[in-house]
């Protein structure tokens, strides 16, 4: 089922005209109502009237994640605060989280985006969606929730964790559609097997998975073990959560909701716009968001765009499954982690050396695990094991509270972590994604 055939199957030229109109409206609203954008455009010597074609978007300067932090909390609002109805933030792991502020209009748009995505995978109002994304500030939970409601489906807001209850509800409530991170899906499959629950006997038939990198190989595993079709869904706190793009039942690239989010691929070095089909950094302009629009936001995600006709009938441009990142951000169980954040915590912890190594793995239970190796120096070394264990525990607790991830801390001898001239290898990612 196509949720909004008019929008999703629109002839390309017609859509371009619509995108231009929405882009012009967005830029002039941002220029008029948001000092940050006015200043940015003024410095670039651009007035909203200068945007006469879609190609003119290349004249607008990029917006970066750093700028989002600098404008925290309300610096990107283009409407009065009273118009903002819901606020989400990123995990806020660097201390300053990235904010997503939504007006009533934006929430409706987000709901429709996510509803379109759910429909792309075959879900209808007759489906029972078990939403295993975390509810709260994280956009995953409420994004799918809004989408499921807009679609008219039944949503079970079970949130992340509590695996036995997940299995129980799949069985008892006739869940057809599972939404969670791909690694949690695999974990559930294993738990089902251990609990003696044959998923083939349940109504589960599809899953929308995102918020962390995964591969074709992982898709095959999920499909086989859970006996479902597995679809990749894309979103990011800065734009809207899940709903920006999603695979249709063809499972060949993710359709972008182009009438809401205008995508570009750029050369990450030069900033130059690349033609469709060429690999580079994904950039989005929100052309239907009123609360805190983003102009040419650099996602740091690497992919390419393609527009060949899709058998599903949608005419929207597709992005290839994400092919990596243009920075050192790690995504651990759906949580964004930058090595620099770990570095800051170590620097603030007495006696710990700034030499560290992060080892990321996806182990037996299919969930990401992170190990932090730190060097111990004389100032914290103790002849008593309980004091050394306390150092580990304390550090693990700080990381848990700041970054929201469980870390295994391994204490290392001084100089045992390799020093390298130039760029040290701080992260070893052993995940076979």
């Amino acid at each position, binding site marked *: 089922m196509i949720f909004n055939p008019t929008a999703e199957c629109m002839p390309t030229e017609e859509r371009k005209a619509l995108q231009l109109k929405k882009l012009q409206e967005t830029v002039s609203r941002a220029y008029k109502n948001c000092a940050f954008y006015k200043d940015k455009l003024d410095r670039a010597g651009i007035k909203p009237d200068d945007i006469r074609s879609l190609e003119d978007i290349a004249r607008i300067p990029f917006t970066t994640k750093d700028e989002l932090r600098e404008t925290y909390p309300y610096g990107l609002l283009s409407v009065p605060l009273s118009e903002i109805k819901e606020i989400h933030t990123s995990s806020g792991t660097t201390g300053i989280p990235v904010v997503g502020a939504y007006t009533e209009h934006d929430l409706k748009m987000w709901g429709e985006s996510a509803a379109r995505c759910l429909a792309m995978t075959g879900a209808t109002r007759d489906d029972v969606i078990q939403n295993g994304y975390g509810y709260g500030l994280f956009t995953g939970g409420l994004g799918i929730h809004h989408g499921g409601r807009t679609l008219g489906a039944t949503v079970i807001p079970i949130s992340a964790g509590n695996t036995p209850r997940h299995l129980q509800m799949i069985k008892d409530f006739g869940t057809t559609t599972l939404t969670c991170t791909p690694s949690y899906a695999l974990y559930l499959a294993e738990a089902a097997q251990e609990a003696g629950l044959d998923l083939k006997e349940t109504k589960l038939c599809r899953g929308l998975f995102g918020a962390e990198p995964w591969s074709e190989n992982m898709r095959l595993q999920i499909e086989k073990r859970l006996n479902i079709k597995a679809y990749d869904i894309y979103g990011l706190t800065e734009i809207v959560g899940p709903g920006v793009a999603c695979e249709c039942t063809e499972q060949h690239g993710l359709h972008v909701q182009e009438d809401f989010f205008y995508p570009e691929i750029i050369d990450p070095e030069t900033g130059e716009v690349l033609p469709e089909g060429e690999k580079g950094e994904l950039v989005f302009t929100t052309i239907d968001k009123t609360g805190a629009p983003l102009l040419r936001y650099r996602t740091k995600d690497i992919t390419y765009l393609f527009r060949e006709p899709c058998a599903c009938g949608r005419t929207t441009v597709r992005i290839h499954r994400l092919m990596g990142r243009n920075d050192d951000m790690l995504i651990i169980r759906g949580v964004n982690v930058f090595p620099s954040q770990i570095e800051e915590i170590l620097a603030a912890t007495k006696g710990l050396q700034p030499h560290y190594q992060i080892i990321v793995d996806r182990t037996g239970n299919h969930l990401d695990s992170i190990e932090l190796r730190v060097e*111990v*120096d*004389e100032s914290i*070394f*103790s*002849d*008593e*094991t*309980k004091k*050394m*264990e306390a150092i580990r525990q304390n550090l693990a607790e700080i990381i848990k509270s700041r970054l929201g991830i469980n870390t295994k801390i*391994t*204490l*290392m*001898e*001084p*100089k*045992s972590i390799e020093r390298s001239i130039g760029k040290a290898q701080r992260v070893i990612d052993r995940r076979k994604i």
Partner: protein
Amino acid sequence: MALKQISVFLENKSGRLADVTKALGDAGINLLGMTIADTADFGILRIIVTDTEKTMKVLTDNHFTAKMTDVLAIEVDDRPNGLSHVMDIFCKNKINIEYLYFTVDRRNGKHLVILKTENTNQALSVINSNGLSTLSSLE
């Protein structure tokens, strides 16, 4: 008087104990007592040596994390209840022991219990007032 003990942080990987003992041996340092506390990931080697200052220098020069700590070396009788007599004194005076191990005083063959308490000075005065002998050096 307290006795100086040196602790060395060791990662749990093969060859580290060989490395540290070789470094000390090559520098002419004799080990008079030792024990290892181990956890899943690391160990703490605790040693009593002939020359503490030199030992610290050798360890630091070889990039080991090492630390000097005050411990108590108490002579115990080599007979049943030799240790329990000492423990009884600690217990009555409510002194907690963090760890202990044994060695022998090579000069006279006497048995020694090396132990670490929460408060070394307090333990020392209790020990002395109960007529036990403590050693500040095994050389």
